[in-house]
């Protein structure tokens, strides 16, 4: 059995998650998967669209914040539900990724919860455990 990709954490007003991976890059990818699992039911989402992201920030925490918020921005303007994330280049402060998903189609997709943003509150990047934590504003 494969290890759980992410786990939701309890927060009174909002929703948070801890994401895991064999590498930190995988944990970043799983955090993004967790984000879109909060937004929609991903089972019926196909991989017909790809978007590439290239990000560079001052530290891993800023990179995680920017990564998740860039995806929220993409969803907001293009209505693409992403379900798979290939992070090709990653050094903790920079990443290059290809994101796969499909444009929202109300006849086949179920949206669950709108996510306004990823916040810095309790945001953690653990390079030893390859684990990240984030709280979203709902």
């Amino acid at each position, binding site marked *: 059995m494969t290890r759980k990709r992410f786990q939701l954490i309890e927060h*009174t007003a909002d929703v948070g998650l801890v994401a895991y991976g064999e590498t930190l890059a995988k944990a970043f990818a799983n955090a993004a998967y967790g984000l879109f699992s909060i937004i929609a039911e991903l089972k019926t989402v196909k991989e017909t669209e790809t978007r590439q992201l290239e990000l560079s920030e001052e530290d891993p*925490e800023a990179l995680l914040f*920017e990564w998740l918020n860039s995806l929220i921005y993409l969803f907001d303007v293009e*209505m693409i539900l992403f379900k798979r994330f290939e992070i090709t280049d990653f050094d903790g402060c920079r990443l290059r990724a290809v994101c796969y998903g499909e444009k*929202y189609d109300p006849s086949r997709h179920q*949206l*669950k919860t*709108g996510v*306004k943003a990823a916040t*810095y509150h309790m945001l953690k990047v653990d390079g030893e455990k390859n684990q990240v934590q984030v709280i979203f504003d709902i």
Partner: protein
Amino acid sequence: MAQPNKPLEKIDDYRWRMPKSYKTGMRVPGIIYTDEDMLKQLMKEQALEQVANVAFLPGIVDYSLAMPDIHWGYGFPIGGVAATRVDDGVVSPGGVGFDINCGVRLLRTNLTGEEVYPRIKELIDSLYNNVPSGVGSKGNIRLRGAEINEVMVKGSRWAVEHGYGRPEDLDTTEERGEMPRADPARVSSRARERGTPQLGTLGSGNHFLEVALVDHIYEPDIAGVMGINQIGQVMLYIHCGSRGLGHQVADDYIKEMVRAMTKYDISLPDRQLACSPVKSPEGQAYLAAMRCAANYAWANRQCITHWVRQSFCQILGKSEKEAGLELIYDVTHNIAKIEEHKVHGKQQRLCVHRKGATRAFPAGHPDVPAKYAKIGQPVLIPGDMGRVSYVLVGTEQAMEETFGSTCHGAGRVQSRTAAKKHLNGRAVLESLQSRGITVRAGSLPGLAEEASEAYKDVTSVVEVAHRAGISKIVARTRPIGVIKG
């Protein structure tokens, strides 16, 4: 996690003092407005820790305050109020939040429950069709080119000039729906891109439209000035904010301020509190962009108001004049404002952050509309969708104690994940219907997250605000129809 063993000092039944010794680094003590029961709940989460963290902000005066609906937020607690000196204090985008100028407006009508009940399903359907809502909803307004800039500068006035609503709506909107010194040049292209198609949409989460009936009037004279005249009178609430535009402005400036923290030698226990001096280029740019998002949110609620009026008139076969549908007031509950307040007997210019808190200015304050000069500013406190909501007014005591602020809603007690685990959307829908509340929701899981059980009882919250004297209860309403984004 929460540190329940640290002592809070009880001042009276509705006020607790958090001494500076609660956490090393606090610049001022905290004051929490709550009661014994709600305090027990607070001890279980991190809201108190957040009150302490806010007290770290450079230039904060008097106290880090928590209104009676305080609960665990991100950075600031929800229900958090902090005032910083304009001269040498900071502004924190996290003290406003991602949904800049999330707010509530209340319309009164000349209609009674007897007239509306028989048509309530049609009315809710019409409202649902007329006002786009839900995750990622796009609006019916087509903004051309740089028109979004005009929306960000003029706010509600832009909407009224384009046929959405009545000129007199501006008289009863906080800031007249148009904060001055909004500079669209400070708003990123990403924010415009998100905001342009979303104008005139409700969004999701806890945003809603609610048709309600007046079910108790506590202060008939004050209520009368607002046009709240009788039990059974139909009212309508609109709760929403600045949509993707505001979220992106917050995101952009939190990032910028995280980077600027070293430059200004500021260190804080939570990055989400990232801030810059009010007078710094970063602080000024944020405030100019925040005002754009605030104005956008007012334009948003103003456009929705127009469609709400259309639905009412169409379904009930009344003219706007017959139906009434006047705007009682519109308040923002996520904002930072430059205001004058007395600190230690001296008038000072402060940057007042209200994160899930409502302005509550008293009678006679120059910022209160002429119509309400004698009664004070209306304060609108929606409860959860199955229970009651309240109309209050601001008080002199709020001016003295809380920089003219009070609570903004019920406040959650149960997490969204827990609510979904224990309740399912269908059951919540049926339970509301069995209580005579017609509901339309974009998403059933979303509905479960917003169930009554997930919220504090708003009555306990407003009672604390009332008894502590930071606002005064005027009237109570009960929902008969709800649209959840």
